[in-house]
């Protein structure tokens, strides 16, 4: 039997592409080398990290804020193995959901490593060897944690995010290399639970790519509340291990060599596209200097009929970006003409307070010479934030000076990962700050901060500050 489409990789890019292809009437196969579906995101990424972030946040609150709410909990205990077990259950239920979706959409699942024999033949090497005949192929093989050339990841003491989500015993101390989103999120998890966390970062700021004010405020909060030790502008030069500890050597701004000792070293310096064993050479597709598969605007590779999406191609390594591309590639193949506005893919860091942004950064607008105005509203002035004792952060709305069109929205605060969706809707419709300022927002909610910041951006006249 010949399939219309074979998808390689079952992450959010791959499984969504498979579902959409099936919805559009194609006969679809999906190949996944692991026994569970869902890829990085569901197994060792978004979902497990959020499970641990939520658990650890509860623990932290029980320890630090409950008493002020008038709740005494007696002697607080941490059952770390249970926390990890619950996380695994969440992952299990979620990946099971993907399996259900495959059945529902009559998508055939092949377990094993997929590789190209030619552009219409996929070899699946699992428990047994199988070949799949297919008209078209979508590559969605995602990414793997990357490292620095001189660091050897032993997965025992020097670990990546994957292992950090699987530890059986709470570390006493942890050095994290990289203050990006994954470093900050996992750093938060362990710091909340009592691990002494040090984050070493090469740049002079955390969460690069996000708004500068978010970075500043977030770092201040994590230092103050979680006692995380940030070592910015430090260039890591070596990592050494003993059976019980790790030593990270770094060069500070003055050129001096400094050492950070801890039980674990978590390497969170980014991720690289994953194409090993895929047999791209058999179809004449080569990767670029960063290991990514080059594609055209329809996600087609140099070989007609072979497409690629998600972390394995250019662009932000985000699950929702991979999903959008999964939908689009399916629709392109079906002859439709969808469109992704990459400018409007939000970026989020799930710390507490959460940070999120979409659209242009102030620095980008400055560089473009575009005139803009900024409106800001702090959660300190939000009734809802006071009620829940989550008064850190702000919403910042950037609008075109002349037309008032919203050009960027950046926020730090409680549950703003959900709130950023409002900014995306507004910007997809090219709303003005005034438009948002004139829409009713339920009271009292965190979302009111968005309206107030918009009013501030529009005419400098927020109502509640």
């Amino acid at each position, binding site marked *: 039997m010949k399939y219309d489409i074979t998808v390689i990789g079952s992450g959010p890019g791959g499984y969504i592409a498979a579902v959409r292809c099936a919805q559009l009437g194609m006969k679809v196969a999906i190949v996944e080398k692991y026994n569970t579906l869902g890829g990085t995101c569901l197994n060792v990424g978004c979902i497990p990290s959020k499970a641990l972030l939520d658990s650890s946040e509860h623990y932290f609150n029980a320890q630090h804020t409950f008493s002020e709410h008038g709740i005494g909990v007696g002697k607080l205990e941490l059952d770390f193995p249970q926390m990890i077990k619950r996380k695994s259950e969440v992952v299990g239920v979620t990946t099971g959901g993907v399996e259900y979706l495959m059945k529902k959409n009559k998508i055939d699942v092949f377990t094993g490593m997929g590789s190209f024999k030619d552009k219409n033949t996929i070899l699946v090497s699992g428990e047994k060897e199988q070949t799949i005949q297919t008209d078209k192929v979508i590559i969605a093989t995602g990414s793997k944690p990357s490292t620095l050339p001189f660091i050897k990841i032993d997965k025992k003491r020097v670990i990546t995010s994957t292992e950090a989500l699987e530890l059986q015993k709470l570390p006493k101390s942890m050095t994290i290399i990289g203050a990006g989103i994954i470093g900050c999120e996992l750093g938060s998890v362990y710091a909340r639970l009592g691990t002494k966390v040090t984050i070493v970062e090469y740049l002079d700021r955390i969460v690069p790519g996000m708004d500068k004010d978010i970075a500043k405020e977030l770092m201040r909060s994590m230092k103050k509340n979680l006692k995380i030790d940030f070592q910015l502008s430090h260039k890591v030069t070596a990592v050494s291990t003993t059976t019980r500890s790790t030593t990270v050597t770094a060069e500070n701004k003055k050129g001096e060599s400094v050492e950070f000792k801890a039980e674990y070293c978590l390497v969170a310096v980014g991720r690289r596209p994953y194409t090993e064993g895929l047999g791209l050479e058999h179809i004449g597709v080569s990767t670029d200097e960063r290991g990514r598969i080059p594609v055209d605007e329809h996600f087609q590779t140099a070989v007609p009929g072979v497409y690629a999406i998600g972390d394995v191609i250019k662009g932000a390594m985000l699950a929702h970006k991979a999903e959008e591309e999964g939908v689009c590639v399916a629709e392109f193949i079906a002859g*439709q*003409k*969808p*469109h992704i*506005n990459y400018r409007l893919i939000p970026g989020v860091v799930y710390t507490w307070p959460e940070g999120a942004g979409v659209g242009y950064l102030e620095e980008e607008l400055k560089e473009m010479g575009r005139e803009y105005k900024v409106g800001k509203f702090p959660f300190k*002035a*939000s*009734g*809802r934030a006071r009620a829940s004792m989550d008064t850190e952060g702000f919403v910042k709305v950037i609008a*075109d000076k002349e*037309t008032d*069109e919203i050009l960027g929205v950046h926020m730090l605060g409680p549950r703003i990962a959900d709130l950023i969706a409002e900014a995306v809707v507004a910007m*997809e*419709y*090219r*709303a*003005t700050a005034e*438009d948002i*300022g*004139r829409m*009713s*927002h339920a*009271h*009292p909610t965190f979302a*009111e901060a968005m*309206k107030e910041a918009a*009013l501030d951006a529009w*005419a400098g*006249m*927020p*109502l*509640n*500050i």
Partner: protein
Amino acid sequence: MSIVEIRVPEIGESVTEVTLSQWLKSDGDYVEMDEEIAEFESDKATLEFPSPNAGILHIIAEEGSDLQVGDLVCKIDTAAAKPAATATPATTPSPEPTPVAKADPTPVKAEPVSSGKPGKVEEIRVPEIGESINEVTLVAWLKEDGDIVALDEEIAEFDSDKATLEFPSPFAGKLKIIASEGEDLKVGDLVCTIDTGFAGASAPAPSAATPAPAAQPAPTPAPAPTPTPQPAPATKSHATGHPSPAAAKAMAENNIAPTQISGSGPDGRITKQDVLAFLRDGGTAPADQVVAAVEASGGSREQSRKKMSRMRRTISRRLVAVKNETAMLTTFNDVDMSKVMAIRNQYKKVFEEKHGIRLGFMSFFIKACANALMKYPAVNAYIDGDDMITNNFADVSIAVSTPKGLVVPVIRNAESLSMAGLEGKVRELAKKGRDGNLSLEEMTGGTFTITNGGVFGSLMSTPIINAPQSAILGMHRIEERPVVIDGQVVVKPMMYLALSYDHRIIDGKESVGFLVEVKNQLQNPEQLLLGADPVKLVLGL
């Protein structure tokens, strides 16, 4: 509910389809029973359509749409109360413009809410447009009666003699239409009123911030919902023509450009519904896009559709209007061009050296016409109402073909210009025309027009006069033809001349006489002027 659906009635035995040519009432108007609300056209006749009920009119079918007997035309809300204004003293609505100092007729229902500010009703009159323009035609209202308009938002389209002008609203507020479409208005005539007491697009800023104790959002002056779905964009903004994600996909799939659709969303945003409606109404891909070819035995059968440019539409409307409104006919003659050509050949070089300009044929024709116009003033005159206006100057319009269409810049006082002066003007205006740089002023107010179809190879034609002028001369190609002179067949370079004229003020005697005069002057160039060595004089050498 007392909404009555109004459908196309049985009109006559053989009539099954009509075209809704015009709405005589606007959407939202209060109409009386038996009041004429629309005009239908059947195959043969135009029918006025009386409303079978009294109430508020909700227009459904659009102007220009073809309707079958039984199709829905409009709805009438019979529950709606009659507006106060029409109920006052006089039993019949006064045809006078509504007194402006007074407030609007009492809003019936779902009217935009007043902002509560003391509303001021501003009278909007036809502004000074250009020196020679004292009359314009109100071609179309771009907004409907009762619409809330923003400052500088285009509300109407005026036609002057030469150009179409969009008319921006000088105030923000609620529009009350006074002048109707097609009406000719003088500078200073009342066009509409705008009640500035209505919260509109440019709503006032919320008043100074007061730190409220609780985060209770203060009610902001919200723009109230408008009575009916608004077809026209409310205001032009950065987002006008911006499609929603779903609309963008549908447009991409059907090769529709944003400019082809007028968005009905806020500020003219394009909604998915707009795209679907566009497709349903027969909207197709732009002209340069191949439209699905019908399968046929051999040979391509491509068609394309593209909206005419505004200039094209204006030209088309005006040409048809001239044909309908004047008593136009054409008289012909022919002219032996030998002498003009001989003069040209003889003096071409020296003329160019002296004046830095080529000596063309155009100057001869303009000169001949200017002279003949002085002799036959009726050909140089035009009708204004019941009056006839004669001109003691010859402002000759020259038809210039440009990429966008025909334009007719004017050479003023052609009767007193030298040949070099005429050639210079012709060159200058033609260039400006092609570059699109002609000013309104330069295209306004000729008294007679010359058009040269000869440049495209035309042998003979019947040009259409350039209203409000009364005559136009058509030049054609020069070709050698056998003619009989003194009983001998000889070959001469001949050109046919055509003069189309408005018989209402020009009689056959004058038109024919005029054309003969032009012919004689061209055949005897020395007559083009007076005095000794006439040729040298006229060439300014």
